[in-house]
């Protein structure tokens, strides 16, 4: 078995993930390389979800009975865990949403309805990048169409990095918000935060960072990032689906208006008007995803027990190995940085003229799960003149043997369609 420096004890870790034992298609062992789409769930999280529903289930913040108090304590306890995980200065800066898309949409809507100085209107500009997930493009297109604000973006270099050469022209005095991805879901690129944040601060623009592909894979410190908002989702970091996070600086959350109205987010309501609860509740209308938040808390406990720095080192070693092995496959072209430097563990590629759907299907027949398509980042495919890519993405339980299985699988694909 291939040994690489920095690897985790995957033999032990994999025992925590029952699904990784699945055998598919008459005896093919599952090789799960679609972690950028969603991660698998460890027994520790599944048990907490079971226990929540078996022992504690109730609505939060409104009952006086035992279950309501337990459910509330568990839900708010999960908020504490998230705050600690991202080094938030205050637990009240952690808003639970249903996913990262909702977190990003929430910021777009806060700014659309905000008063000065935050208000996005026809005289202002919004800045994103060409490597964003659709969830960090479409909300800004909507806001731009509704307000008349101008939508601008950073382009990409040929090797899959942000082109910041014109940063002073892209981010200007008119810019109200700069929203960009920390680690690209399609290219794997780890973007340079500091340069962008510095320029945004110079012109007084807010910064929103989409950390969906970062939070699961590396230590995340919202204070060190110096952003104003950070969004991520639970299901990519060993948690359940249906739970996302928006972190925002406290004074902004106090100043900015709510988006969804309803129960939970109010202070008092009359038929004429209402006043709102303080953040984070101001932004959590209605019954929240309670079990899912508790599950995310358990996922954070699980990841923290292993150590985010160790997970980062593991994935870096594996990515280095995978890049080196993949570049030896004839006709394979990596779309994105071609080394493991400043990149995450999602690797997109094309294989000659073979369509990624066909690559993915033939790999699936061998038990290998990858993602194919445009990965909700179609502008990236357009930029590089390709219809789609095949993407392999790794996580803390991925092994060098799985990289080898992928490479062998790709040889089989080439023979099949060759």
């Amino acid at each position, binding site marked *: 078995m291939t040994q690489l420096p920095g690897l985790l004890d995957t033999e032990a870790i994999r025992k925590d993930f029952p699904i990784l034992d699945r055998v598919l298609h008459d005896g093919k062992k599952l090789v799960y390389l679609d972690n950028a789409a969603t991660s698998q769930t460890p027994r520790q999280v599944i048990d907490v979800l079971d226990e929540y529903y078996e022992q504690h289930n109730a609505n939060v913040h409104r009952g006086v009975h035992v279950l309501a108090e337990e459910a509330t304590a568990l839900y708010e306890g999960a908020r504490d865990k998230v705050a600690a995980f991202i080094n938030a200065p205050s637990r009240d800066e952690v808003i639970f949403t249903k996913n990262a898309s909702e977190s990003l949409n929430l910021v777009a809507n806060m700014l659309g309805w905000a008063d000065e100085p935050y208000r996005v209107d026809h005289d202002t500009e919004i800045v994103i990048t060409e490597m964003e997930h659709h969830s960090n493009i479409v909300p800004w297109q909507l806001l731009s169409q509704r307000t008349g604000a101008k939508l601008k973006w950073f382009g990409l270099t040929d090797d899959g990095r942000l082109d910041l050469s014109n940063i002073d022209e892209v981010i200007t005095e008119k810019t109200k918000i700069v929203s960009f991805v920390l680690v690209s879901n399609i290219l794997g690129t780890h973007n340079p935060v500091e340069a962008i944040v510095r320029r945004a601060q110079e012109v007084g623009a807010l910064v929103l960072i989409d950390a969906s592909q970062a939070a699961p894979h590396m230590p995340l410190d919202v204070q060190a990032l110096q952003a104003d908002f950070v969004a991520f989702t639970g299901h990519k970091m060993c948690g359940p689906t249906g739970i996302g996070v928006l972190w925002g600086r406290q004074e902004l959350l106090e100043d900015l208006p709510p988006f969804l109205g309803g129960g939970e987010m109010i202070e008092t309501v009359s038929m004429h008007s209402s006043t709102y609860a303080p953040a984070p509740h101001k932004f959590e209308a209605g019954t929240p995803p309670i079990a899912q938040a508790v599950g995310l808390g358990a996922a954070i406990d699980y990841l923290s027990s292993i150590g985010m720095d160790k997970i980062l080192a593991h994935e870096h070693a594996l990515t280095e190995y995978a890049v080196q092995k993949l570049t030896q496959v004839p006709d394979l072209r990596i779309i994105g940085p071609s080394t493991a430097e400043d990149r995450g563990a999602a690797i997109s590629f094309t294989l000659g003229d073979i369509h990624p759907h066909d690559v993915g*299907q033939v790999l699936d027949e061998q038990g290998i799960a990858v993602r194919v398509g445009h990965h909700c980042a179609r502008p990236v495919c357009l930029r590089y003149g390709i219809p789609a890519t095949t993407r392999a993405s790794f996580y803390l339980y991925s092994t060098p043997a799985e990289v080898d299985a992928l490479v062998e699988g790709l040889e089989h694909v080439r023979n099949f*369609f060759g």
Partner: protein
Amino acid sequence: MYQDVILDHYKNPHGRGLRDGDAEVHHVNPTCGDEITLRVKYDGTTISDVSYEGQGCSISQASASVLNELLVGKELADAQKIQETFLELMQSKGKLEPDDAMEEVLEDAVAFAGVSKYPARVKCALLSWMAWKDATAQALGGADAERKTA
């Protein structure tokens, strides 16, 4: 899934390329990025040509090739029957074993029976057929409209 017939059509597509037509449509499969631009040409109610250009997986491209082979030269009513039979087969979730009657209608297209087991790929197989249906409605609908205004 990948029957030899499908791979043959993928590697050697029939009637590929855009030619003169009465109507043109552009259909995409947003989940994967398969695209097709398709034109139909009618001589009365006879299909005189179906021409197309597109990009996508072997299933979507082979399906367009089979469509061209099956439908060109057919009467509209016969073509519609083929299209409906193909749709029925593709929506069968792998549970329909094509019988002789179905094979007679579908010819090479019967090779796609295995695709119906894969929900993510059914759209690929149907892309050109839906485009043809749409283009036909536009071509003949448009002709009707012209006749009415004439």
